[in-house]
């Protein structure tokens, strides 16, 4: 009977050993192989690709852009998503479920279709977004959105927003409304209640949402590829180019492995920090 759990999970374990662990190890090894225009991939162990990725200023710039975009996407999602989750949570029964469906539903709609929508909205200088912003008097001349980081940030913020709302929403479900009522009864204004009672309690939700959004934004592919076009590259679109256009697989593998390592470090580091910060309060 002691073997039973292992036997039960054997199919899944075999599948993951064969189709996840082995390919990942092979990819790490691939990043150490040599490559030449005519000789193709040579299975030797060299540090050339890693040296190139770590020292070439082109790659520095590209990774800086990737993480800069991810940072602003996370900021936008937190600043706009968290208040919406709070408003949503205060709604009455039919509306609450309906709008939750409306806001979380896009998560399941193809990311290609959603990004296509942004490409149509941005569409050159006469795009709908520019028309709306100009008629609202917010800007005087059309802003470039297509093929810019601004466009990528806006589109990615839209694509990943549901994760933030979901995360804050989950934190709000654990909140005891009586505490809010107690604060009001003791004479706190609505702003004070929000700042001193609600915000500290949903902060773990905002932070864990931020970690998810950041990780997904830094590794997003379809949205940066469509909005950024062929020139404005981020880590994932660069790796794609190396694999399917230049055919320098070892270099592409080095870029991908570096992205994975950076993300794992950031996600684990940030999670530790959040857990330590809030361990005393919620432990």
């Amino acid at each position, binding site marked *: 009977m002691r073997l039973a759990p292992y036997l039960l999970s054997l199919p899944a374990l075999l599948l993951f050993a064969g189709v996840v662990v082995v390919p990942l190890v092979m990819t790490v090894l691939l990043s150490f192989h040599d490559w030449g225009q005519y000789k193709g991939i040579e299975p030797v162990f060299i540090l050339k690709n890693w040296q190139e990725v770590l020292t070439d200023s082109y790659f520095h710039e590209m990774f800086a852009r990737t993480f800069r975009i991810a940072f602003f996407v996370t900021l936008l999602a937190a600043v706009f998503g968290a208040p919406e989750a709070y408003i949503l949570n205060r709604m009455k029964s039919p509306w609450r479920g309906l709008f939750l469906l409306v806001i979380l539903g896009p998560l399941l709609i193809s990311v290609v*279709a959603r990004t296509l929508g942004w490409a149509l909205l941005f569409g050159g200088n006469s795009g709908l977004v520019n028309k709306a912003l100009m008629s609202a008097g917010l800007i005087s001349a059309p802003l470039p959105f297509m093929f810019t980081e601004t466009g990528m940030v806006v589109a990615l913020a839209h694509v990943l927003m549901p994760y933030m709302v979901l995360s804050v929403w989950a934190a709000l479900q654990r909140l005891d409304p009586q505490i809010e009522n107690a604060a009001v009864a003791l004479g706190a204004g609505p702003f004070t209640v929000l700042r001193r009672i609600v915000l500290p309690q949903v902060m773990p939700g905002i932070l864990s949402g931020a970690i998810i959004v950041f990780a997904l934004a830094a590794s997003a592919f379809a949205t940066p590829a469509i909005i950024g076009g062929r020139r404005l590259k981020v880590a994932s679109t660069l790796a794609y180019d190396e694999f399917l256009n230049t055919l320098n697989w070892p270099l592409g593998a080095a870029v991908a492995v570096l992205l994975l390592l950076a993300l794992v470090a950031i996600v684990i580091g940030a999670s530790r920090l959040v857990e330590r910060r809030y361990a005393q309060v919620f432990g």
Partner: protein
Amino acid sequence: MSKNGPLALAYHTLFVAFMLAPILVVCWVAFTPEGFLSFPTDNWSLRWFYAIARYPEFVSAFWRSLWLGALSSAIAVGVSVPAALAIARYRFPGREAMTALFMSPLMIPHIVLGIAFLRFFTQIGIGGTFVGLVLAHIVIVLPFALRLTLASAIGLDRAIEHAAVSLGASEWVVLRRITLPLVLPGLASGWALAFINSFDEVTMTVFIAAPGTETLPVRMFLYIQDNIDPLVTSVSACVIAITVAALVVMDRAYGLEKLLVGRGVDGR
């Protein structure tokens, strides 16, 4: 609970508009009667929907996506059930590590998985084949299937099984007549969530699909890379319509909130 003020409702309206704008605009442009991208106002036409039929790549990619999603989700659920029972019922060394391994496709960027699968499948000689697509999709949708089967396996009342055993049922009969029927709703919703994730996946699939094995999102993505015209908006509009229909069904049957607000998505 206090009510939302007018300011909050105004903010909410803007937020919902932001979330829906790109989706609605795709559907709007899809009805253009023109040969180029435009926002139809008084003239609506279905010509670009009929045009899909004359573009066999989209049609065959659609059927391929459908089969791929159905097949890989079914296998993922089939593999998840015993694993979920093991995780839910036993305390054994390596239990946490194993769960983390099965959930890892959620954490590993799909771009990295795509590259890893491309390298692996090319080496073992199934690069660009449907078999490779199925294997890869099983792995990436397994966390969703496992999450929901696990939730229903944990929620299962063991007393019912014990009662069946005490009444003389064999282990196999208990599994077939008691356990599986009780976890079936979890399996069905796990399959549905896995299917949608497989149907929408593009980042990983774009690496391992060859011209004859492209899925619909990959075909759409490659098409958009070349040019954006009304045809791809009408295809997208169809995809959106299908997803919304599935969404409403799933929401009625299981509750979207329960489906999405589970461990895994925010399970930290």
